[in-house]
């Protein structure tokens, strides 16, 4: 069970404030949907959770521990693209995490130890519906299959926190619905905490147990550098009424509406 604490986080680039005063307490086993217009810093926020970037001020803690200064295995990630290794088959992609964990020197296993890991990887592939694609290279798979693969690859190392950066943004609507089902099932099974950045409001409401919207509160051109975006809406989706959710959706729609789907 993983708690995430975010306190007074600011992020500046060359003196320009991107994010300011970000405070968030995330209970264990939450699914946090993050929405907001382009350039509001939601991807920056995700990169800070990943330790790809560090906050200029403030801190982020997982279970009371400060984030390490670089990406680690406790935080898994699925990007919109380039999430899987093109030179490995689906099975090898999933086996990557367990292999590097067990073979520090060569990064790969041989013989019976390799066989055991591949069996584990095959089971993980089956759980995302890719039973028959183990021998395929990512380039031979559809976009939806690649994202399933990326999810299986990220989950096999059992991260405490899973970070999703518009993971389904490039997929067709029908396939996206399948992916939502898969994601909800895995979320229930694993008990992990998920942060998902998305442009799709319906997706955000459908998957999340909590909705966080980022936006700038000062938008005049001369204020852009001095004031950043911050959390403008924080809604517990699992404990709110249908009416609250409907109002929030309408309120957000015109702010996020100018975004590409």
């Amino acid at each position: 069970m993983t708690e995430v604490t975010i306190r007074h986080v600011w992020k500046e680039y060359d003196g320009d404030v991107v994010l300011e005063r970000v405070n968030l307490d995330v209970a264990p086993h939450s699914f946090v949907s993050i929405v907001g217009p382009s350039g509001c810093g939601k991807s920056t926020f995700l990169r800070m959770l990943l330790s790809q970037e560090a906050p200029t001020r403030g801190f982020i803690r997982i279970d009371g521990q400060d984030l390490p200064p670089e990406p680690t295995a406790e935080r898994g990630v699925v990007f919109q693209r380039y999430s899987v290794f093109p030179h490995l088959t689906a099975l090898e992609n999933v086996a990557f995490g367990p292999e590097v964990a067990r073979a520090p020197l060569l990064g790969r296993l041989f013989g019976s130890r390799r066989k055991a890991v591949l069996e584990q990887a095959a089971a993980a592939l089956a759980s995302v519906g890719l039973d028959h694609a183990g021998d395929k290279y990512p380039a031979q798979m559809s976009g939806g299959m690649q994202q399933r693969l990326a999810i299986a690859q990220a989950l096999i190392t059992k991260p405490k926190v899973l970070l999703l950066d518009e993971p389904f943004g490039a997929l067709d609507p029908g396939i996206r619905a399948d992916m939502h089902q898969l994601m909800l099932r895995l979320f229930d099974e694993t008990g992990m905490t998920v942060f998902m950045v998305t442009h799709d409001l319906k997706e955000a409401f459908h998957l999340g147990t909590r909705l966080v919207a980022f936006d700038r509160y000062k938008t005049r051109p001369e204020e852009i550098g001095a004031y950043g975006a911050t959390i403008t809406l924080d809604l517990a989706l699992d404990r709110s009424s249908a009416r609250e959710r409907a109002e929030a959706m309408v309120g957000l729609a015109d702010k996020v509406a100018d975004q590409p789907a």
Partner: protein
Amino acid sequence: MARRLINLRPSRQGALYLGLLPFLILIALYATGSSLRLAENPDDKLLPGFSVLADAVVRVAFTPDRRTGTVLLWADTAASLARLGMGLAVATAAGLVVGIGNGLLPYVRAGFSPLVAVISMVPPMAVLPILFIVFGLDELSKVVLIVIGVAPFLMRDLQARVEELPREQLIKAQTLGASSWQVVLRVVLPQMLPRLIDSVRLSLGPAWLFLISAEAIAAEVGLGYRIFLVRRYLAMDVILPYVAWITLLAFAADLALRALNRRLFPWLAAGRGA
């Protein structure tokens, strides 16, 4: 309906004929020019007839030399290929290590990248005299010339390819628990090898250039040495087969490297098919 030129394609057979046509025209032109000159002066050496060329080939490729007892063409080929192979092997290894180091590790890049950038601007032929002085007139200076001529290109090219790797891949590998070393072994190196082989293919031309130049200046055996030696006697009947042979060797090496890439890295073809 008549189609636009950009949509007109030759059939497979047609493409083959079209590809052969320029070669046939060149051979015909040579034959015409040769017979015209020979008709005027039977001792003409500039464009020897095909029978004279064939005699020369038999002499250099199938008859032991009277003075040395070896068959010249094979001795020359063995010497040149040994130099070329060694030079390319060292350059490739250096390109791989420095390229990946510069591309992946910021500290290595800060220390080495400017040096590589400057060294790659030194014209290799300009330092050839230095190489002769330092390494002597033997094999070593020729191999070093090839290394100096080719390695900086390979290093910079590979560095650029490493830097082109999507950032997401490196992050992903870290979130799966991979160390720097494991990232090199499992993510970067396997994806760089086919690109390295492609770069080596592109380097074959310069490598031959440096080899033949070095052999022309100081050597006792070698394809370049032979060409420049018989030039004194205007022996076009030897030079032309040698040039054709060198071209064939270079072409075969290029083809072999391409086949190697396809064979070793099936995921590349998978990427192209999609």
